[in-house]
């Protein structure tokens, strides 16, 4: 039965093509405080697309303008809060991040563009949030911050912002990064939930189309933590969990192996895009 109805499918395709609302990502360029951002670049080898595109290109003109201007960008408040935390002493060792890492503008430059990276101690990829916790527990004698709490997003935003404009580039040759990349790819293409959709269903197959009011982007992660105009500062694993919840599936835990693998793989899918943290989205 299944494949008998090719004629119907062809007809459907013809109608889809004549739809009125197909919208290309905009032809626009982004500069933040005079720093040019790469929002469109040639995809790395083995990528399903020819070009990787920042989510910025899929947003409305007003939203794009808010990101252009750091004074207007509400996400910059989080970056400032993160700077305060960077200099705040915590834990039994009487240290702050700055005690060891000094001026983040120098020591953290490029860090946000190259994470997740291999962490030999845990035998897993580590992201900025978990690195903060590693330094807190192992260096400062402080408690690990719970997901999205205690300034975790703000510190992460502050660290990533030090790489503003730098191209995302992972080193997959370290440790087992390659096998985590593979595992992340599996997660990306696995359909979940009652709606039976994978990340790829929306961000690859339907990329550029509208799902109700939302213009579907490639689902790139180069701007996280991101500031969403309707809901505020949003961390990456919060976004992953939200997209998975929308398929009517159980949400995996933040920093679980599945989501760390997914972060590794999806970050690679944005290779060459500039770090935009804190990006502005709808």
């Amino acid at each position, binding site marked *: 039965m*299944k494949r008998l109805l090719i004629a119907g499918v062809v*007809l459907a395709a013809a109608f889809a093509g004549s739809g009125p609302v197909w919208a290309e990502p905009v032809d626009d360029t982004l500069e933040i405080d005079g720093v040019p951002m790469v929002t469109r670049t040639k995809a790395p080898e083995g990528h399903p697309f020819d070009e990787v595109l920042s989510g910025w290109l899929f947003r409305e003109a007003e939203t794009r303008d808010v990101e252009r201007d750091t004074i207007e960008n509400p996400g910059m408040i989080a970056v400032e809060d993160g700077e305060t935390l960077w200099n705040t002493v915590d834990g039994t060792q009487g240290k702050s991040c700055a005690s060891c890492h000094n001026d983040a503008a120098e020591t953290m430059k490029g860090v946000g563009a190259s994470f997740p990276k291999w962490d030999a101690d845990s035998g897993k990829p580590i992201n900025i949030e978990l690195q903060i916790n590693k330094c807190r527990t192992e260096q400062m004698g402080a408690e690990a911050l719970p997901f999205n709490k205690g300034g975790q997003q703000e510190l992460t935003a502050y660290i990533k912002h030090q790489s503003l404009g730098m191209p995302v580039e992972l080193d997959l040759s370290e440790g087992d990064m390659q096998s985590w990349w593979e595992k992340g790819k599996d997660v990306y293409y696995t359909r979940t*939930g*009652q709606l*039976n*959709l994978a990340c790829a269903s929306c961000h690859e197959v339907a990329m550029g189309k509208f799902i109700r009011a939302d213009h579907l982007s490639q689902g790139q992660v180069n701007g996280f933590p991101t500031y969403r105009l309707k809901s505020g500062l949003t961390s990456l694993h919060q976004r992953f969990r939200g997209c998975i919840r929308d398929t009517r*599936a159980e949400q995996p835990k933040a920093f679980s192996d599945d989501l760390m693998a997914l972060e590794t793989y999806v970050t690679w899918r944005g290779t060459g895009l500039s770090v935009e943290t804190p990006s502005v989205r709808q």
Partner: protein
Amino acid sequence: MRRMKFTLGAVTALALSTAAFASEVAPDAVDFTDDGVTMSLTGVAGDPVAGAETFKSRKLGNCLACHANSDMSGELFHGDVGPELDGVADRWDEPMLRAIVANSKQIFTDETIMPGFYSLEVGAHLNEDLVGKTILSAQQVEDVVAYLGTLKE
């Protein structure tokens, strides 16, 4: 076997006529033939007005998420992940529309993005509360199919 269960169900449904508990075809017993799903899932005629509501509702069909539909031009935000549904009843007859809504993967390919609205073939890690449940009830599918039947050009 499948077909027999189905026929029996339909007969019972007829006997009970419009009783609300008229036996429904279970989601895993729906008979997809080359002509689509030829028999009603409930034996109760679909209501196109209720079907239009189910179609629009974000909590139920949310069909507008993926399909533009000029008949609902008063509603904001029509998606375009799937084809426009203007005149869809000229392209597909009722049994085919029922099959597409119940489980479009039976009609298109396994790769289609369109969810199966009366199907237990779901994705991984299904939300616990939804185990064994379909997106729409059998009657809601009948109502939506009746509504789609009004979309002629």
